[in-house]
């Protein structure tokens, strides 16, 4: 078990054909979104018009994780655009025999998101989410096909995709995220890891603990409390904090 990563180059159809020939288990093409409006922002994944349920679920899981991490919304239908917009982008992923996704996690045209795309921390966060999604949906390992959107096309070798607001290009930064993801997948332990619960600030890990695979995790926004109900059927919600402590916190906020 374990992951092998291969970057595919050439025109998009040729990349998919080559990944099919290599019997890759999953195919990822990384882009960033772009708009004429600097305020447009959401996370979305394009899957082929013929996408399997694995591709669709993988895309939705990834888009939701990105939206949560970067404080944005998911676009499309619950995070995915099946067949792209009016078929645009469909040809990038519909010719694979394995599950395939075209990622557009952030907007290159959105100044704050462009800053995140350029930053080491932003790239690391995107890489971690992508690596986690691959571990989750393809736990048996295998060859993962990576494709850098726009770059290395035979028909258009100078294409680098959208310009990042503030400098840089979509393709060069998508490549950095994929390179970081490749390192995470190939350098981290190959053994199955337990399900981890993490608290993170940006890409900085504040707290981490293993939790049961089947545990249902609840978040109480009223009490800023993450909790797992007892497995023996005990009440789902934890006991209320003492009223005195609540009042003290209220005073401190005021």
């Amino acid at each position, binding site marked *: 078990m374990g992951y092998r990563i291969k970057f595919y180059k050439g025109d998009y159809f040729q990349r998919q054909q080559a990944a099919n020939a290599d019997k890759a288990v999953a195919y990822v093409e990384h882009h960033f979104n772009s*708009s004429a409006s600097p305020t*447009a*922002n959401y996370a979305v994944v*394009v899957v082929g018009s013929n996408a399997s349920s694995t591709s669709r679920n993988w895309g939705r899981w990834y888009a939701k994780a990105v939206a949560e991490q970067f404080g944005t919304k998911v676009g499309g239908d619950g995070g995915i655009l099946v067949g792209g917009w009016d078929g645009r982008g*469909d*040809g990038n992923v519909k010719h694979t025999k394995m599950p395939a996704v075209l990622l557009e996690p952030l907007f290159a045209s959105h100044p704050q998101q462009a800053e995140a795309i350029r930053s080491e921390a932003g790239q690391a966060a995107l890489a971690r989410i992508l690596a986690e999604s691959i571990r989750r949906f393809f736990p048996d390992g295998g060859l993962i096909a990576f494709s850098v959107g*726009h770059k290395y096309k035979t*028909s*258009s070798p100078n294409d680098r*995709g959208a310009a990042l607001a503030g400098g840089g290009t979509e393709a060069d930064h998508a490549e950095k995220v994929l390179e970081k993801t490749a390192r995470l997948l190939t350098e981290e332990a190959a053994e199955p890891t337990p399900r981890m619960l993490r608290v993170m600030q940006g890409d900085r890990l504040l707290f981490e603990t293993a939790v049961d695979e089947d545990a249902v995790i609840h978040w109480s926004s009223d009490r800023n409390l993450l909790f797992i109900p007892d497995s023996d059927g005990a009440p789902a919600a934890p006991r209320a904090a003492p009223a005195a402590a609540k009042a003290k916190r209220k005073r401190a906020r005021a």
Partner: protein
Amino acid sequence: MRAAAAGLALLLACAAAPAATLTLRVYFNNAQQAGRMDNCAIVFPRTRSVPPTPAVAGAALRQLFAGPTEAERAAGDRSPFSAATAGLLKRVFIEHGTAYVDLHDLRAQLPGVTSSCGAAEFGMAIERTLRQFPTVRRVLLAIDGDPRRYAEWMGQDCDLRNDHCDPAPFRGGR
């Protein structure tokens, strides 16, 4: 008598004169007006007055490809098009309900329009601008007469939706 004749001549001249301008619609995005940041396919009409011409589709596209005015931008209008793309249209003609739009190769000036949001902005603005004319029911695009080049740029397959990228109509046409 002479004054009356002159008045009549002026009246006839006015009646025979064609309209001084033609009013057309172009379409741009406006996130404030749409009230949401997550749907790039929402566009709004803006009017343009141009000299009268029978080639209305070309006139409308030329206005669209020049992008929003300063006042429209100040009011929140956005578009993939700007002064840099004003010369994007090579030609357009309409046959049997299909508008064939041939573009100059300005891909370098439009790098963001192949993203899913950018494609929606680009495609919807052209589609809505052309469909203001009742004779247009669908739109096909090409770059320098080659619809396959346009499809590859957009990551589209050549299939029924785009007549399998048949270049023949772009070579012929009016």
